């Protein structure tokens, strides 16, 4: 036991720290970004053992000039691209107005998805409308891409009398069964194994619908992540498990979640499922990777983990001020650019779009948001109208048990008094 010979070294704790903090200039020098078009596109039934390099690469389609290059280029008609562009622009306009609405006290809370619009919009479009979505709070783009009513979303945000969730949920915690959009939970990660369970059920019943779920980079550390991957792998569940790596979890950079040790896509390797790492600000790449994973799932080849590499350009939520923990201009230096600008550039490069058309689109979606906002405000904003308090006792159980009847009566008595 020769190790005794040397004087033992003192141990020390390594605590990861981002390269730049407030006061520093935003800077991503040294970040290795793969060349667009460089990654091969394997067959969707390729065995996992042949895919173990993918988590360390980055699937990119759009190059710096806006050209789509390489094997991953999806065969998309221009109207699909235009629909995607519009949905992303609408999402952004919605986010802007709703953040303002929060500042004005019309709602208590809001979460923007600025810079991450390609993730939800391209993924929603690459899936079938009857595939089931288990989102986190930052995928409002899924609903918008599925053409859900933004008025309805606003009523939830304003907790007004038309709020389909009857004022029960924190703003942004939508639930839209009509669009196969699962009820969002405030507890991080819980939807991940639920999506796997839903997909298992679909397989048990010999159905054809698959499921998809989204969590953030920070949330990968939760138990639910491990449970979801384990169950999905063991039963080959037809599910797409997405990790939106937007570099931050409130004030913690992705290194605190282990992002400096390995990519999040690499987590998949240990479970024997394919892990794809994708330029999350590249609409085409996100679409193509999602389509690949969906096809794999639909043919009983099981789950895929997709890491969507992107950047949270705005604050975590309206309760947060990122200038306290990261350089104020960091977003501007993000090397993968802005997803809307990049798709716009691509369409212009294709000769199917122009700056003028884009300006008009931005004005149009903003007008759409404003119109819905006026309607929503007419119904009510936080506190001005709301669900009947007695409804609070409904849906705790399917039927109202005696003790809740009595409590409801107590409340109504107290309110009457």
């Amino acid at each position, binding site marked *: 036991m020769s190790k005794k010979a040397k004087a033992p070294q003192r141990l020390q704790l390594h605590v990861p720290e981002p390269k730049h903090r407030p006061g520093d200039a935003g800077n991503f020098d040294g970040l290795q970004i793969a060349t667009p078009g460089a990654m091969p596109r394997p067959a969707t039934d390729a065995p996992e053992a042949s895919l173990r390099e993918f988590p360390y690469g980055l699937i990119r389609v759009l190059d710096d000039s806006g050209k789509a290059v390489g094997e991953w280029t999806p065969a998309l008609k221009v109207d699909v691209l235009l629909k995607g562009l519009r949905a992303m622009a609408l999402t952004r306009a919605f986010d802007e107005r709703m953040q303002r609405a929060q500042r004005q006290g019309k709602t208590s809370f809001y979460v923007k998805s600025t810079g991450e619009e390609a993730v939800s919009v391209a993924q929603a479009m690459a899936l079938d409308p009857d595939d*089931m979505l*288990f989102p986190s709070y930052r995928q409002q783009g899924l609903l918008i891409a599925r053409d859900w009513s933004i008025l309805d979303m606003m009523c939830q945000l304003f907790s007004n009398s038309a709020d*389909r*969730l*009857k004022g*029960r*949920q924190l703003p942004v*915690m939508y*639930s*839209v*069964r009509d669009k196969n959009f*699962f*009820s969002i*939970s*405030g*507890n991080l990660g*819980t939807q*991940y*194994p*639920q*999506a*796997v*369970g*839903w*997909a*298992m*059920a*679909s*397989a*048990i*019943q010999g159905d054809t619908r698959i*499921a998809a779920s989204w969590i953030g980079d920070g949330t990968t550390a939760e*138990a*639910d992540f*491990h*449970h*979801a991957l*384990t*169950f999905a792998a*063991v039963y080959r569940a037809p599910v797409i498990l997405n990790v939106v790596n937007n570099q931050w979890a409130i004030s913690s950079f992705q290194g605190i979640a282990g992002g400096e040790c390995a990519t999040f896509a690499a987590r998949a390797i240990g479970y024997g499922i394919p892990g794809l790492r994708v330029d999350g600000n590249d609409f085409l790449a996100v679409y193509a990777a999602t389509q690949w994973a969906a096809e794999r799932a639909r043919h009983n080849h099981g789950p895929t983990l997709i890491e969507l590499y992107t950047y949270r350009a705005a604050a975590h939520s309206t309760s947060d001020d990122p200038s306290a923990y990261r350089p104020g201009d960091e977003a501007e230096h993000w090397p993968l650019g802005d997803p809307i600008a990049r798709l716009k550039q691509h369409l212009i490069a294709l000769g199917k779009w122009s700056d003028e058309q884009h300006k008009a689109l931005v004005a149009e979606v903003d007008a759409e948001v404003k119109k819905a906002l006026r309607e929503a405000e007419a119904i009510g904003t936080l506190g001005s109208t709301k669900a009947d308090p007695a409804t609070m006792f*409904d*849906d*705790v*159980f*399917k039927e109202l*048990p*005696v*003790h809740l009847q009595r409590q409801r009566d107590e409340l109504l008595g107290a309110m009457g008094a």
Partner: protein
Amino acid sequence: MPTMNMIQALNSAMDVMMQRDDKVVIFGEDVGYFGGVFRATANLQKKYGKTRVFDTPIAEGGILGTAIGMGAYGLRPVVEVQFADYIYPAFDQLVSEAARLRHRSAGEFWAPLTVRSPCGGGIFGGQTHSQSPEGIFTHVCGLKTVMPSNPHDAKGLLIAAIEDDDPVIFFEPKRLYNGPFDGHHDRPLKSWAGHPSAEVPDGHYRIELGKASIVRPGQDVTVLCYGTMVHVCLAAAEESGVDAEVIDLRTLLPVDIDAIEASVRRTGRCVIVHEATRTGGYGAELSAIVQEHCFWHLQAPITRVTGWDTPYPHALEWEYFPGPARVVAALKSAMEAA
């Protein structure tokens, strides 16, 4: 009518439900090929196939998480948590998710699942094979909590639980699986054979959730209990000479307030018995309810006879277990108070 022990009755309930409804699926650790460490799911995989009855990874949180997703899809999962002591890793999925899904989605989604889990001590299981955590779950709104005390109720309640559209935690007092147990651990083991509650119909029947059963009518003291303690309380009633009315609550949430009220108003005295630790246990809620609803009828303080506020100790389990002697003492002191 066939005689069944509790395991057979539970197995029969699941068999009946698997047969009637192809949305019922069963999974958990060791429940598939092997049929469960207590054999409650024996033969079900053989009968209904691997995709309806299957083993899972050892991850209670994953079992509950996937069950909720399956429930949202439209299945009726019946999952086993191997021991109630191992339900804690699934706590977040149970409390934050299963219990709240219907409410938070305003009725758009729900989780019609049943969680079966053996609870209670008296088998030298030590602190992690003996717990009765029902008092934690009865505090969580949106969960129903059930604990049967005999084979007949076990089957009827389990069928009702599986058919229920809300999540139900179904605790099975493992000490009762093979026979009734009145706490006299030094006497010979009894089997269910010959016990009236062991006559269990083969087919489908339900025992409505939320309804208690008066297992011994009496005039002097109301005894509120459930699970193994029902048998202990019955023995104590006989041994004490006190004419106790023993109520087997069966469902803890929603509890049968009317039955409790009616009895205590009549007897004016109340003893509450459970195996779980005392402080903050379900007995506290029962005590509070009785006191709120029957204050003017009470002739003596309500007493709780419970496990101590310690982990369930392996070799000292009979000192921990609230056996008949302690219940007898409580009955007598309830009668003496004035």
